Each structure stands twice: as C-alpha cells, then as structure tokens.
C-alpha cells in the first residue's frame, strides 16, 4: 500500500481536529498559529493516518464500482455474509481469498507508533512507502490464536526527506472479543 500523493490541506486538518474533539487553534487559525513557536498551522499527531484518503485502493472505503461489505438491503453486501454461515475450515480458506473484499476487516488495530522528524503543515505534499515488518502469533484465552503483523510506513516530502515514520500492528483474532 503506497500513497503516491498525499497533499496536506488546512480544511482536512480542521475536519480531523474536530473529529478528535481538539479545539486547539493551532489546527485551524492561521493568525494565531503565526504567533506561536511552530509559526503555522500544523496537523495533530495522528493525522498521518488519514493518508488512507489518498490511497486509491484503500479497502476500508466504499467504491462505486465494487460491492461493499457493510449493510444495504442485507446486513452485508459481500461474501462476508456467506462466511458467517459457512463451516470453520471454509471460512479460513475463503478469508485468505477474500482479503480485498473486506473479510480482512475481521482484523483489529493492536498498536500504532509515530516517530516525528518534523510536524506536518498545510502545503506539504507527501508520498508514502510501506513495507512489511515482523509477524508473530500468540495464544489468548479470550480470543483464541492471535495473528499479529507489522507494517512500517515512511511519509516523505517532495524533497524525499523523511517526515514521519509510522509503525502499525494489526491482529486477526480467532474469536470475536466483546470484553
């Protein structure tokens, strides 16, 4: 998953800050920001994750020409509905085949790490490079076998300078965890 062009825009930063309930004017008011140490609007620390908006193939966004696994006329628009009714072994096989259509959404986000080389600001145009990190398994009483996988994403600017290094860890659980 690579994003070729991730333009960082003031309106997107504003929307993102609102969604996390952050009213700090550093994210919305250019005049206030000009008088601060950073000197301009910056993006909140977790904003880089919204590069998903600029990944044309991002599988957790509905697309007009593809079936979506969320509900419509039925509880799910894709194979996931059939998977829930199939036997165990078939589910495992089909899950492997069906990653793109959304069965992989059975995965949960286990960890997220950001290393900041500098902070993002409107006008930055980034691109990303993602590579796979470690993979490991763990046995859990609550959720069965847990399969962890790590992905490292480098956010680079137009000069190819590293701006943020992100590391995400995903986990696929054998059973649903409902606390």
């Amino acid at each position, binding site marked *: 998953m690579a994003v070729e062009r991730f333009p960082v825009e003031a309106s997107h930063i504003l929307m993102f800050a609102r969604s996390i309930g952050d009213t700090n004017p550093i994210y919305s008011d250019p005049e206030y920001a000009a008088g601060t*140490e950073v000197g301009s609007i*910056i993006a909140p620390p977790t904003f880089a994750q919204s590069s998903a908006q600029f990944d044309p193939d991002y599988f957790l966004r509905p697309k007009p020409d593809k079936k979506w696994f969320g509900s419509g006329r039925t509880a799910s628009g894709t194979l996931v509905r059939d998977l829930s009714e199939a036997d165990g072994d078939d589910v495992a096989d089909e899950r492997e085949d069906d990653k793109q259509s959304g069965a992989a959404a059975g995965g949960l986000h286990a960890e997220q790490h950001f290393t900041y080389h500098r902070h993002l600001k409107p006008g930055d145009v980034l691109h990303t490079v993602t590579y796979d990190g470690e993979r490991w398994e763990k046995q859990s009483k609550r959720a069965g076998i847990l399969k962890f996988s790590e992905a490292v994403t480098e956010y680079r600017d137009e000069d190819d300078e590293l701006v943020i290094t992100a590391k995400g860890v995903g986990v696929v659980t054998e059973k649903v965890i409902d606390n």
Partner: protein
Amino acid sequence: MALSASQLNVGDSYSEQIVDDLTRTQIVQYAGASGDYNPVHTDEKFVTEVAGYPTVFAHGMLTMGMTGRMVTNFVGDGRLTYYGVRFTSQVWPGDTLTAKAEVADIRDEDGQKLVDLTITTTNQDDRPVLTGQATARLDD
C-alpha cells in the same frame, strides 16, 4: 506552552477527561475525517449480524487521537518526537475516557532536553483502553 526541564520532575503527571459519553456520531465523524470507513465502527446492522459484536466500537485511532490531544496540551504544539500506543481494550459508544501522562524520564540527547511520558487512557470502569509512550522536546 512548552514545558521546561527545570520545572519538571519524574513522577509528575497530567490528565484530562478526553471524552464524556462517546457518541456514535463522533465515531462517524472520525470515519469521515480519517477515511477509515470500516463498518464495524459505524454500521450497527453489519457489526451485530455479521461481525458478531454487541454494537459498533470506536476506531483505535480515534482513542489515540483524543489521547494525543491530552499529550499536546501537556507538552505543547510541535514538540512531540515520538508517540506510540497499544490498544488494550475496545471503546464503545457511551464510554467516558480519561487520559493520563506521567513523566518517566527527563534526559539530554545531543544537547536537547527530552521528556519520556508513560500514557494510559482508562474508561469509566477504570479499565485501560490504551497504553503507550511519548517523547517530547523540552525547554532547558
């Protein structure tokens, strides 16, 4: 407002209530802003009938984002050099979360003073939903 190394001690802490009675609408708002439209976060029918959860739940990244607000309110804007978390429990609509940062270390790296923070976000039952660390630049 940035923090000064001279005024900070290991063991100092700062906390904020980061959300009171989390709404499904805020989860939708985060989906829209972040671009993560996984229906487990917004689609009651899908999440209960297909995914098998009791109701929708928040994106881990929403909790990390709201917790980040507490961190930047503490250390100042543009001061973070690292922020990393582990999601330890799910966050549900109706949850009230409190995020806390505790000073674990104050150190010097190439002449730059840094603070290492231990971060914990707990829900109304005192259950940790997020644990993590952050590092920020300090004034001398």
